[in-house]
């Protein structure tokens, strides 16, 4: 990229690495950051640095948080007998938005996918199992995505949790086939959660 000054070229390259940002968009964003007020551009840089410095996974539920344990894990009004397992922090947000769920969460940060080299040891599964040991938790809701990887992960977890004497459930179908929780609308997601079924 000889036609860009070197720092600009590096910025474009960094933006291009972001999901959903093609080379043209990266170039447009970079030029925008060069032409907008200085404080705005530096504000963005500071926001990125601070978020990266302060945000880390909760040691209990693995959700992204700036406090440990996270707000949800500390909230005394939450029902501590239920844990809802999701793939990504954004899925947790989607479920929180429905307002129907008052239990705790556990974020796996992925789903089983041997094709991508993702096995059980790459997900927060040991951390989940250690939360189940003291007997407080009575039900575990496996709200992984309704695609092949999400289903397989749910089944894998069900096999691990059932011997512990827990009720293991999965949100009712009616979610868009192959879709992600993230994209399900709040009504559908709320209904799927309240109509959850025991896994067999």
């Amino acid at each position, binding site marked *: 990229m000889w036609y860009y000054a070197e720092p600009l070229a590096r910025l474009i390259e960094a933006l291009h690495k972001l999901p959903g940002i093609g080379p043209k968009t990266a170039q447009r964003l970079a030029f925008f950051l060069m032409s907008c007020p200085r404080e705005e551009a530096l504000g963005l840089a500071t926001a990125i640095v601070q978020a990266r410095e302060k945000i880390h996974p909760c040691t209990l539920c693995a959700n992204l948080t700036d406090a440990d344990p996270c707000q949800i894990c500390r909230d005394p009004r939450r029902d501590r007998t239920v844990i809802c397992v999701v793939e990504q922090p954004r899925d947790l947000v989607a479920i929180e938005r429905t307002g129907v769920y008052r239990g705790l969460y556990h974020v796996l940060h992925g789903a*089983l*996918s*041997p094709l991508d080299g993702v096995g059980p040891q790459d997900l927060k599964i040991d951390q989940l199992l250690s939360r189940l040991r003291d007997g407080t938790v009575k039900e575990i809701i496996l709200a992984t995505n309704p695609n092949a990887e999400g*289903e*397989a992960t749910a*089944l894998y977890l069900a096999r691990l949790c059932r011997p512990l004497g827990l009720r293991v459930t999965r949100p009712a179908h009616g979610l868009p086939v*192959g879709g992600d929780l993230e994209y399900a609308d709040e009504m559908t997601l709320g209904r799927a959660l309240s109509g959850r079924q025991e896994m067999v």
Partner: protein
Amino acid sequence: MVLERLFLKNFRLYRQATVAFTPGVNLVLGENAQGKTSLLEALAVLLLGEGVPGAGARELVHWGEEEARLEAEVRAAGRRTRLRALLKRGQGIGHYVEEAPVRLGEIFRFFPLVVFWPADGEILRGEPQRRRQFLDGMLARLSRRYLADLRRYRRALAQRNACLRSGRRELLEVWEEEMATYGGRVAAERYAALHFLTHKVEEIYGALSDGRETLILRYLSNWSEGKEDPTAQLRLALRRHRTRELRFGQTLVGPHRDDLGFLLNGHDLRSQASRGQQKNGALALRLAQAALVAARLDQKPLILLDDAFAELDCRRREWLARYLQEQDQVVLTAADGRLVPGNLTVSRRLSIQGGKVVEESAG
């Protein structure tokens, strides 16, 4: 539902042409390499998204041009609808109903089409993969659910194969469950379609051979013994083969390995039949497919037959003529007008020369 008009621009040797069709039998006459097959191919590309098998999809766009355009006007319940396909060189084909981009399957379910190509004998004599493509392509067009189940099955299969290659035995089970669920549905759909096709193929081939020969179609599977509860059968088969498959590093049983068998007079058609018999078998298969489409979509498909009369003897040509007469709309080509049987009532006749319609007449 009737195809009334086809417009072609920069498609194969056609620069620009408009061709009118009528209900009943439309006969396209022309010497070889003058564009009569390309006319059928244009309809196949427009409605099925694929041209003549093995005929080089890269040359669909006229030499030296960047883009080809195909448009069909179809009439249903007094309303005219325009179906379009845009072919850009080196890119895919875009399909549209009026101005709206649509998925291919939607066009097919709106205006179904079945084509017979002379090379279709390859379905019967070629590799098993060719027959699975035939079956999956047909069922995926008829039902979106089949396509979704098939994709889901293939995904789980790829994941299980990755487990087999890395020797992660403890992870096999969850993918097997996924494969059993969706592979079971795929197999159930195939069995149901085969049940229908088998009867039809037997009936049509019997008639084509004057009752002297029989052609039996069978679903060949190394994991299922019949159509009862394929999910349970597949689950069991996958579990049984684990040890062997861990050695091979891939899944050896399941719908992705199944095949169609054709028994001609009790013997495997692949080793026994002449080329003529194979071609007749393919013709029977395509006509049976048209009957299945009609039954599933409650609408008779447009049928295209490329050079179907060649290699048939006189009695068979006459039988085929009677069969085609019962269809809603047929377009068929012939290089030699003398091969067209006298009992065929043609509603429209076209002559093609050098990518142009040089003569048109009713009847």
